[in-house]
């Protein structure tokens, strides 16, 4: 028993076993936990949500589209539709499927939890954009209304999720849809991105990879069947129309036009000054609030004052104080350099 080699092997095997069991997201225990949630209730709720989204976006909803969205067979979809009909959640008129008022409020409750959770993850945790939706897809079937209300209160009762979608209230109120698709813009037109659809996931991650986010100012250059070409915060961006359809735009809200070229704060060299124009939307939650509390808001004069030994972080002079920021933060603060003084 006390043979070192045997013990060594047992030790290694034990560590390996623990790794396989507990490894986050890919481990056996997390997988089992996840699979448990994919039950009948989740399917019913997902179907309701899908039908609601169809209505919100004025798309007709059929049995086939439900099956396609939920990734199940047409027969299974028929079963779910029948069940929902029995529960009084939907009305089926030939091909056309519509929510009853009861079904609508149920769907809105699920959507509320989903969007609240995304907002929570975005603002209060270190999870990345790509993980929010997945996590919210799970939690939406689990969180009770009461817990959802508590969560909402804790994070300041948000009314928009991080993608720019409105969050329904506890009573199921939701504002009407505004804005239009990116593809509906004309060349030369300017607009603000107000929403990025997070489903399907593959398209969403492509948009995220392009660095686009709600609140971004864009100018359309070219739009046709093959490609959509536009400028976002000064950088050119080309998308296929299929992907561009996931982006909703609204009228521009900026009061003063931007002069000069937008540069990230991180491009300032020690001794250089600039005027802050904005903070990227991707800097959110506490991070964003902290920066603004410290006085980094549009219109603020900022000067790079001091580099640390390795050059990151850099200390900036803001409103009479010296504040150190990491490069990944400074990359997300935009300004125009104050070059007149040189």
């Amino acid at each position, binding site marked *: 028993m*006390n043979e*070192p*080699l045997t*013990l*060594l092997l047992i*030790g290694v095997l034990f*560590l390996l076993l623990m790794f396989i069991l507990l490894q*986050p997201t890919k481990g056996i225990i997390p997988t089992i936990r996840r699979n448990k949630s994919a039950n009948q209730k989740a399917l019913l709720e997902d179907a309701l949500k899908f039908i609601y989204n169809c209505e919100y976006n004025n798309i007709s909803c059929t049995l086939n589209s439900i099956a396609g969205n939920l990734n199940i067979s047409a027969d299974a979809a028929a079963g779910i539709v029948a069940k929902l009909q029995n529960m009084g959640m939907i009305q089926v008129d030939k091909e056309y499927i519509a929510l009853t008022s009861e079904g609508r409020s149920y769907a809105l409750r699920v959507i509320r939890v989903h969007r609240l959770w995304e907002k929570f993850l975005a*603002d*209060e*945790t*270190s*999870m990345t954009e790509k993980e929010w939706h997945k996590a919210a897809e799970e939690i939406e079937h689990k969180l009770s209304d009461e817990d959802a209300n508590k969560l909402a209160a804790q994070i300041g009762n948000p*009314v*928009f999720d991080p993608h*720019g979608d*409105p969050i329904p*209230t506890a009573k199921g*109120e939701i*504002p009407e849809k505004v804005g239009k698709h990116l593809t509906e813009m004309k060349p030369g037109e300017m607009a603000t991105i107000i929403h990025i659809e997070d489903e399907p996931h593959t398209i969403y991650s492509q948009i995220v990879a392009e660095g686009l986010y*709600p*609140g971004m100012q864009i100018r359309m250059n070219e739009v046709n069947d093959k490609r959509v070409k536009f400028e976002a915060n000064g950088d050119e961006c080309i998308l296929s129309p299929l992907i561009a359809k996931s982006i909703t735009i609204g009228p521009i*809200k900026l009061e003063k036009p931007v002069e000069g070229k937008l540069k990230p704060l991180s491009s300032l060299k020690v001794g250089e000054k600039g005027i802050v124009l904005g*903070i990227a939307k991707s800097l959110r*939650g*506490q*991070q964003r*609030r*902290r*920066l*603004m*509390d*410290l*006085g980094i*808001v*549009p*219109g*603020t004069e900022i000067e790079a*004052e*001091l*580099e*640390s*030994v*390795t050059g*990151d*972080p850099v*200390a900036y002079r803001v*409103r009479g*104080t*010296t*504040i*150190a*920021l*990491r490069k990944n*933060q400074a990359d997300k603060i935009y300004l125009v350099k104050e070059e007149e003084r040189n």
Partner: protein
Amino acid sequence: MNTTITANKKEIIIAEANKLRWELGENLHDILMENIYENATEIAKKTVKYPDTKIAFSFDRQLDKILTSKYFGFPIMFLMLGIVFWLTIQGANYPSSLLANLLVDTIHPLLKNFAGSINLPWWLTGVLIDGAYLAMAWVVSVMLPPMAIFFPLYTLLEDFGYLPRVAFNMDPLYKKVGAHGRQALTMAMGFGCNAAGVIATRVIDSPRERLIAIITNNFSLCNGRWPTQILIATVFIGSAVPAYLAGIVSAAAVVFIAVLGITFSLLVSWFLSRTLLKGEASAFSLELPPYRPPRILQTLYTSLIDRTIFVLWRAIVFAIPAGMVIWLVANITIDGVSVANHFIQWVNPVAFIFGLNGVILLAYIIAIPANEIVIPTILMLTVANLGIQGVGAGSGVMFELESANDVAAILQAGGWTLLTGINLMLFSLLHNPCSTTIYTIYKETKSVKWTLVSTFLPILMGLTVTFFVTQIWRLLGN
């Protein structure tokens, strides 16, 4: 009737607010902050006059340039830390032995004589004087002097404004492992005392990074563990090499353990920020305050009251009951054998797998209040377990020996080898925090979950490391 109308009116206000929020969009907070600062700028323009040139804080700027420069930044930092630690270790030696002379060598016998003169039952004398009093005396005499030197020095650097610059310079390293630059400071504080280090994490204002700093603080080898490391390194590692190398090699071994501790704290930070603590909020900002001339007297006073006495008090509160337990396990017998010996015999086979022994495991359990009393407890237990006569001060009475050779003799009689020594050094680095620190962690996090994580994670790591070291050692040795 009337009340329902007003209730409705209230709900209407709330619903109205919600509607307005949707209309205003998500930038409301941004717009508001921009407005407030616009107002602030306007008022400041009318009331504040800055000097024409950059005279404002020119001294600060100059000093900052030096302290954060590519060439001098790190050397100055290491020099400062080196001086602080040297002052602490050297300065504490004399008062420590003075206190030990007074509390352990003088007052302890006096108390025993007194107890004898009033015919106190032997077991009461044992529990109160050999147990509770001695543990307390030990903790005070080893803990007080280094803390009373280290904390004021640290506080002086803190009040002057140097420490934020250290955090500024060290940040890239901590950024890589998902932590905050200020963790460098709480770690440095941890070298003085882990409990104080945990309290010091208050300066980290981002929740996730603060938790990381709290959980990993224990990997900073604290004041209470340095003497253990030095003693064991001298006894086992120093004696394994030629005499002229003994000093350097054993010193290197201790430094290696301390550096290993820093490495572990970074690795664990990295691991935590990617797994358990992924769900915690993170917000980095580091203000560099202007330098201020420190007020020496005030600093001495506050660091003594706020840190030294505070931590010492917590340690004493835990040491007293533990002293009683230590005495009791050595003196309560079942079938003529003490509880301690029963436990040691029972645990020995398990301890063997980890290259340790029952005495060490028992000592780490009952000496949980303070790492300072681990060695005295080990010596006492070894002597009692082997039934050696003529050494020590009696059953259940902790003691220490002047000469390292005597320690070596006792431990070797207890079956210790070089492997046991190395494993003890590793285990002393990687085991649960002392109870004072555990309690402080609970106080600071107010969470049982994180307290448990910080308690058991290092034990698991310690057992894993000693296990593998032992097996590989034996495999190569055979």
